[in-house]
């Protein structure tokens, strides 16, 4: 059985009268690259901050590594690395000096500094180069190095590719993809860029307006499909199908869609329409992509 690295249950948080998180629950398993997807302001960063105890919660529980309830202890923090919103460091110092400060505080071996610099490919940067003179990509790498310094069981990365060029995005993505396998680090990563998550995550949660709309494996999500039907009288066809207890997912002038319909049902629907003199000129199954699901769940469609 897979160990749970993180279990978030019924998390709620209000700020100045607005409910930012509404009963958020999610579970991250050991070895996962878990993508938390949502539009800007959906509640991704707040969820991550709650896990790191950087905000107070109104209600809910967070359990880590199958043993720590974060309300009772801070001990779990020594097994978590994080990069929240933007990489933070002292710009007047070099990368090594920055890492040394956190190494001292976290009380981890000094060797880790060289190791993480190698992992993020900053080992060849001149030792005396100050962080303020780094490019955005280098800063992002250094942010990940700071998060990795403890070689934590769980690393939390909040939009780690923000502002990077395509090459930088790819490099960071490749780096993150290596973490579970090579260093045994489970990754919780948030983003609003779907393609980025699609390429590395094995499990995802879609969050919208502070609510989890979907949680599961990417493979499961991609197994879902929708049946697209176009007829010579769409409104009559919709009425007819609804009378026969079919759930119409989406409807527009061109046609309408039904979710997750099996082959036998497709045949029944086709026969039903034809026997009622409705001319079907298009009927096909479309496999849902992550983008389709994301848009369906976040644009308010059923």
């Amino acid at each position, binding site marked *: 059985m897979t160990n749970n690295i993180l279990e978030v249950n019924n998390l709620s948080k209000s*700020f100045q009268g607005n409910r930012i998180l509404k009963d958020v629950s999610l579970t991250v398993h050991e070895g996962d690259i878990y993508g938390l997807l949502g539009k800007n302001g959906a509640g991704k960063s*707040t969820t991550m*901050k709650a896990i*790191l*105890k*950087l*905000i*107070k919660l109104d209600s809910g529980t967070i359990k880590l590594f199958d043993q720590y309830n974060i309300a009772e202890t801070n001990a779990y*923090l*020594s097994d*978590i*690395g*994080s990069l*929240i*919103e*933007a990489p*933070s*460091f*002292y*710009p*007047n*110092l070099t990368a090594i*000096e920055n890492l*040394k*400060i*956190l190494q*001292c*505080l*976290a*009380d981890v071996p000094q060797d880790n500094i060289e190791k993480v610099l190698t992992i993020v490919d900053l080992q060849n940067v001149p030792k005396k180069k*100050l962080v303020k003179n780094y490019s955005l990509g280098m800063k992002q790498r250094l942010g990940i190095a*700071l998060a990795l310094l*403890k070689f934590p069981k769980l690393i939390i990365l909040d939009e780690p590719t923000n502002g990077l060029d395509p090459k930088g995005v790819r490099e960071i993505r490749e780096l993150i993809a290596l973490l579970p396998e090579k260093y045994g680090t489970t990754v919780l990563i948030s983003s609003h860029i779907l393609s980025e998550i699609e390429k590395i995550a094995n499990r995802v949660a879609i969050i919208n307006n502070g609510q989890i709309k979907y949680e599961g494996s990417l493979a499961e999500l991609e197994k879902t499909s929708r049946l697209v039907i176009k007829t010579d009288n769409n409104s009559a066809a919709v009425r007819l199908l609804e009378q026969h207890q079919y759930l119409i997912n989406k409807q527009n002038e061109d046609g309408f869609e039904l979710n997750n319909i099996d082959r036998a049902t497709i045949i029944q629907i086709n026969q039903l329409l034809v026997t009622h003199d409705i001319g079907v000129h298009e009927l096909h199954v479309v496999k849902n992509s992550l983008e389709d699901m994301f848009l369906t769940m976040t644009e308010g469609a059923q």
Partner: protein
Amino acid sequence: MIKNIFIEVAKNRRRPFWLGLILIMIVEVFWFYVSMIRTQSLPHKTFILDQNYLLLMLMTVNGFFAPLFISILASRIVAIDFDNDMPSVLRVNNQNHRQLYTAKLCFGSLIVLMYWLIQVMTVKYVSQNMHIVFTGHLFIITMVCLLTGLVGTLAFQMSVSFIVERQVVGILLGLAGSFIAMMTSGMLPQTTMRFIPMLYVSLLNPLMLQAKTIVVNPSILINLFIVFFVGLVVVLFTEWYTNKTLEV
């Protein structure tokens, strides 16, 4: 704690504000020295050039410069973390707000101690140069008062910088303190100065002018107690406050 202080030292490397602080200190020492030389060269002196005058001048000049010096020091060493969004990173790495505040206060106190030592050396140098002899305990009392005033002001300024977070507020307070001390030559009524922590160096002047005579301030002990008490309350309040607050 020692580890945390060393970390504060490391964080503040290569920062331009150190130059500003050194410049303020040089101007302060120069101002004090020149004012002593000027008095010495006057043909008709209002005051006798003795230990009382020397120590009164030292405290008065420090009253002008110390608030500005300390406000810049406090705001800059706090800003390095707040301006770079570091408190949350430190928190996740075993350093909470309270520990951060305490480390900064200790680091700031070390700098203030260095500033104080330079004042001690300057006074010694000027007294030797002008053949002024220290008798009794007045020199030690003045130096203790100066150090207490500096640390009391630092505790207040550090708390302002930590709680308000907009660093300009702390610097403006320091600037206001220096300005008021300069405009009044540190001679505001003591009751008023007790409510203005930026003026604590002026408040703790153990000497005062009374009808053109320099006399020992009879309220110095009560002033010392007030500064110590206010400083302690400010530190304890800030430690409680920083421990209590989370980011949102």
